[in-house]
């Protein structure tokens, strides 16, 4: 708790000068999440171990928005997120951009902007904005790259009573080791009074991503089988082409809530398997309490990889690809309780089954594993 207060204090004092501007709108949010697993497992999608853990998924943010002139605003958001490695809250600029509203139909944002890959992308750190304790991990595995430097053009129009929006983006995310050079795409959404449907297509021209286990495997095979540099490159994610497809719908009709989302990720010329994930969540609002159930699954497609050009070593390449498999299905049961103005308490229990996570030695074909997790969160907006 001390660390949370420290993080909050750091944020507050760092931006005290901004608070002095009377025309700056300030909004904040906080999500404090704790969880426990039924065992200490190496499962890559299980966050918590046998002992209750906190912070890994907690986040606190402050957003500052100020009008530069009548049509242009400057927005920046400071986010303090729990860091699993350092056991501290790491503070960073989540996004910071200029937004020019050309008309009711078109606006342009320039700076560090959100990548609209998923339905939750716009509010992924704002637990209060969605029903479940955490965004479904099957689909939201890639959401750690939620923002990048670039330009986005947003359009919005009414088609009859329906609100049609699109968000076209050109970005680059560049870390010290990983690089998403030129992530471009579009998200289109159609919103009615009680439903929305959306679709996203995006691609990365040159993705470089370090996976330590894969690097070690490739290096070891190069020594053992004398793989060429080109063959090693066929395994690693190094300046490869990737594409992402996502679609889904959301219904919020009277007291019924249904969310569905499916996504597919393909990284060409690498051992990383093509991955499809989806979830279906249904809930029913009873006054201030919203119980829900959710099913989600992740599947890989080993047949999507072709190592026939490797000749006699084809099976070696295919074996490396097969070892990348991460598949499972999961059922969740939970509730959200809006116990006070702007605050919600959530609980969720998830049972993962049929787990195959070969790289992490947790389940294999014919010897699948199970894992369960209980999560609790307090979410607020202010």
């Amino acid at each position, binding site marked *: 708790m001390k660390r949370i207060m420290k993080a909050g204090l750091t944020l507050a004092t760092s931006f005290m000068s901004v608070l002095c501007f009377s025309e700056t*709108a300030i*909004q904040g*949010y906080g999500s404090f999440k704790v969880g426990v697993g039924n065992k200490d497992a190496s499962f890559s999608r299980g966050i918590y171990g046998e002992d209750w853990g906190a912070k890994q998924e907690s986040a606190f*943010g402050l*957003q500052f*928005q100020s009008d530069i002139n*009548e*049509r242009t*605003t400057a*927005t920046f*958001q400071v986010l303090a997120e729990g860091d699993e490695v350092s056991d501290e809250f790491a503070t960073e600029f989540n*996004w910071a*951009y200029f*937004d020019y*509203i050309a*008309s*009711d139909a078109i606006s342009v*944002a320039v700076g560090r902007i*959100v990548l609209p890959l998923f339905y939750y992308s*716009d*509010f992924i*750190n*704002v637990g*209060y*904005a969605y029903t479940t304790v955490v965004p479904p991990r099957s689909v939201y595995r890639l959401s750690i790259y939620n923002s990048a430097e670039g330009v986005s053009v*947003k359009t*919005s129009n*009414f088609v009859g009573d329906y*609100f049609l929006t699109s968000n076209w983006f050109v970005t680059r995310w560049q870390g010290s080791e990983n690089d998403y050079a030129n992530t471009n795409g579009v998200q289109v959404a159609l919103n009615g*009074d009680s439903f929305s449907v959306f679709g996203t297509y995006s691609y990365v021209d040159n993705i470089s991503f370090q996976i330590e286990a894969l690097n070690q495997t490739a290096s070891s095979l190069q020594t053992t089988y004398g793989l060429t540099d080109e063959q090693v490159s066929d395994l690693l994610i190094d300046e490869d082409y990737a594409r992402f497809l996502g679609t889904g719908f959301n219904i919020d009709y009277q007291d019924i809530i249904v969310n569905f989302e499916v996504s597919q990720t393909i990284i060409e010329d690498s051992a990383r398997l093509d991955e499809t994930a989806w979830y279906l969540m249904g809930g029913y609002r009873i006054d*201030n309490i919203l119980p829900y159930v959710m099913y989600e699954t992740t599947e890989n497609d080993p047949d999507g990889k072709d190592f026939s050009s490797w000749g006699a070593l084809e099976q070696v390449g295919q074996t490396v690809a097969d070892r990348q498999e991460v598949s499972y299905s999961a059922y969740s049961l939970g509730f959200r309780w*809006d116990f006070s*103005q*702007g605050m919600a308490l959530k609980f969720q229990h998830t049972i993962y089954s049929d787990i195959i996570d070969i790289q992490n030695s947790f389940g294999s074909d014919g010897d699948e594993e199970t894992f369960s997790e209980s999560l609790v969160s307090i979410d607020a*907006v202010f």
Partner: protein
Amino acid sequence: MKKIILTILLAALTFPTFAGVKVIVHPSNDSNFDKRTIEKFFLGKKKIFSNGAKAVLLTLPDSSKTTEEFNSSLLGKDTKQLKAYWSKLVFTGKATPPREMASEEQMVEFISDNPNTIGFVSSDSPTNGVKVIAEF
């Protein structure tokens, strides 16, 4: 007489009446408004008045009966649903949420001083210095 007063009091308690809501703008605002347009503004789906000015939305405290009436009658959402709705828009700057006024008097005074604002008060609230564009 006591019985009559008691009956009136009981009737008032049993059947609470609400005065309704007036949507107000600055008198110089000559934009076109209908119920659907006002709804679009307060759901962040429209940002610019038909006269070309960027709209500044104003609201009353969540605890206000007028806010409750405005949210449910015009926007079709209760206060907590609306808060969750806005929290989906606010944190990527998709829309700027309504600025909260402390009272209906402050709402009227602020709008009378600021041409690009739009807000609401209860139907029985005085509206000197502002223009009423809708009442429901």
